[in-house]
């Protein structure tokens, strides 16, 4: 991978507040045109990390490169590439949607006023844009927040828990919208969440963070395609058990009555079935449990919530 393809690169990022280490030695990067999920339970350090990415918090150690610019040393050029919503989409509630956007356009010389109509069209707020923000629903505020983030034609969109407080229809809408942005405008999206199945459907790659450390970074596809959990209903059970135990690609075998649960690669199921039949074991059911990101996530971060 060429480093020029990276929109965001984070190296050795640390944040210590007092004696507590909130974020410890993070490394990751976001490619051009990809949706990168940043997953972790509440209190894992997601928001602190995002605040460091947009310059609200100074890192104790480490480097953040956005579009090739060092956020600490070349703040203006680096932040110019970014559009963000940190936590809730908080805008000036006493102003109208349009006044809010005008306010932010005025802050950056390069953005023309007519850009407002484009982004408003994009987030489908045209009808209500001249109403005061205090009359907006949460979903509309969220869309205005995204409009605000898109004003400067950013290379990188940073969204912190964007689905918070949205109803299922709103979530689906947001997901489609983000996919559309990535596919049509080619921008990269960095998205944090603690609700996995939402992220699973829109991310290309994810990093799983827990207690301030990244446990794993990989593509969603790879994560899900690891050994899957397979349920066997067979008779006699003992013969089946000893057969499975002999195979080295099968792991974590457990039996319940006439059922056996075991982990194995999905493409070996047919082969195992064949061997069972050869040994005259009656197979009356094979069920493959597709693992979700949620299962993997819970497995990795087990016990975190209780701390």
């Amino acid at each position, binding site marked *: 991978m060429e480093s020029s393809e990276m929109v965001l690169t984070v190296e050795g990022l640390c944040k210590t507040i007092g004696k507590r280490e909130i974020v410890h030695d993070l490394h990751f990067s976001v490619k051009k045109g990809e949706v990168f999920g940043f997953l972790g339970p509440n209190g894992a350090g997601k928001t602190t990390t995002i*605040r460091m990415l*947009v*310059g*609200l*918090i*100074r890192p104790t150690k480490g480097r953040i490169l956005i579009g090739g610019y060092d956020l600490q040393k070349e*703040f*203006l*050029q680096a*932040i*110019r590439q*970014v559009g*963000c919503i*940190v*936590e*809730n989409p*908080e*805008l*000036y*509630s*006493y*102003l109208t949607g349009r*006044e809010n956007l005008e*306010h*932010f356009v*005025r*802050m*950056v*010389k390069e953005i023309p006023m007519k850009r407002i109509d484009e982004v408003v069209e994009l987030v489908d707020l045209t009808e209500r844009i001249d109403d005061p923000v205090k009359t907006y629903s949460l979903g509309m505020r969220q869309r205005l927040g995204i409009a*605000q983030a898109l004003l*400067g034609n950013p290379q990188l969109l940073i969204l912190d828990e964007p689905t918070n407080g949205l109803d299922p229809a709103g979530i689906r809408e947001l997901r489609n919208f983000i996919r559309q942005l990535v596919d049509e405008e080619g921008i990269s999206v960095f998205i944090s969440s603690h609700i996995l199945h939402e992220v699973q459907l829109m991310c290309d790659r994810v990093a799983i963070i827990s207690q301030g450390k990244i446990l794993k970074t990989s593509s969603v596809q790879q994560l899900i395609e690891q050994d899957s959990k397979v349920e066997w209903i067979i008779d006699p059970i003992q013969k089946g058990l000893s057969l499975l135990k002999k195979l080295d690609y099968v792991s974590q075998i457990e039996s319940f009555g006439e059922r056996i649960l075991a982990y194995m690669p999905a493409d070996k199921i047919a082969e195992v079935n064949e061997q069972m039949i050869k040994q005259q074991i009656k197979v009356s059911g094979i069920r493959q449990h597709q693992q979700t990101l949620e299962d993997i996530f819970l497995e990795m971060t087990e016990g975190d919530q209780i701390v």
Partner: protein
Amino acid sequence: MSNLVYNEFYKIIRKKRMLVITFILLVIIPIFTYGQYKTTKTTLEELGTSDWRAILQQQIVDQQNRLASSRIAPERKEQIRLNIKLQQYYLDHDINPSAPGAPTFVRGFIENSVSLFLPLLVVILAADLVSSEHSSGTIKLLLTRPVPRWKILLSKYVALLLSISLLLLIMVILSYLISGIIFGYKGWTMPILTGFQTQGEHLITNFVHIVPQWKYILMAAGLAWFSAIAVGTLSFMVSVLMRHAASSMGVMLAAVIAGTLLTQIAPNWQELKYVAFINLGLTDYLTGRPVIVEGMNLPFSLAVLSVWSIAALVIAFLVFTRRDVNT
């Protein structure tokens, strides 16, 4: 930069703060006007005549008699001589000094509001300027723009200076227009005595001179503006340090009111004169009202207020540009 200032000023206006303050003035000024009207009427009734020339003449004679007395201190005599001169001036130029007129009311209103009422209005304007962005969370949107933090804070400060100036302008215009309904709109050229100085317990009258009222009002408004800016700057710092709009407003109100109370409770406490809130009554130096703590004079008060303001600005900028935004 002008765009940023425009943004901040626009928000102050749209927050309806100015409207609230104008409304307060619209309620307060008529009440004061009526009070002033009542006082004038009572004085006239006590003297039993409505011919102001007769009253003035009588007063001059009275004072001349007192001058002849040997028991009066020399500096007091000087003051009386000045007074006689002024009253003679009124007579010669056919000016009725006790018919208040709107400009006289404006002058009195500025003099009386400079150390408490005006600071309170300024606190309403300034105390949540930055902290409200924290409480509403919009600070995150402001600081993630390609604009350096110091520019954002500076634009807020400039907008504050503009709105304090606007506030004073509204105050002068409203008090002129409203009080004029009862007192009439004339009296801009009425002569006023100013230039009093105090040294120890003595009133030094060497520099006393007569200025037209419009000039006096201009000077008083200028001094009121200076003291309002000082209060505004201190409130501005507090609004940077505090993250909740309500608490920053509370701290500033308490400080302004405590300052006023202290001057009444402990006038012998020398060190008080270095406290900013004691030095707000700058127009007192124009009228020659006795100073609160010995050793205070106009340059001293201006210096104290300047030092406090500069220190507040330095702290505000240092904190704002370095702080982590966690709210």
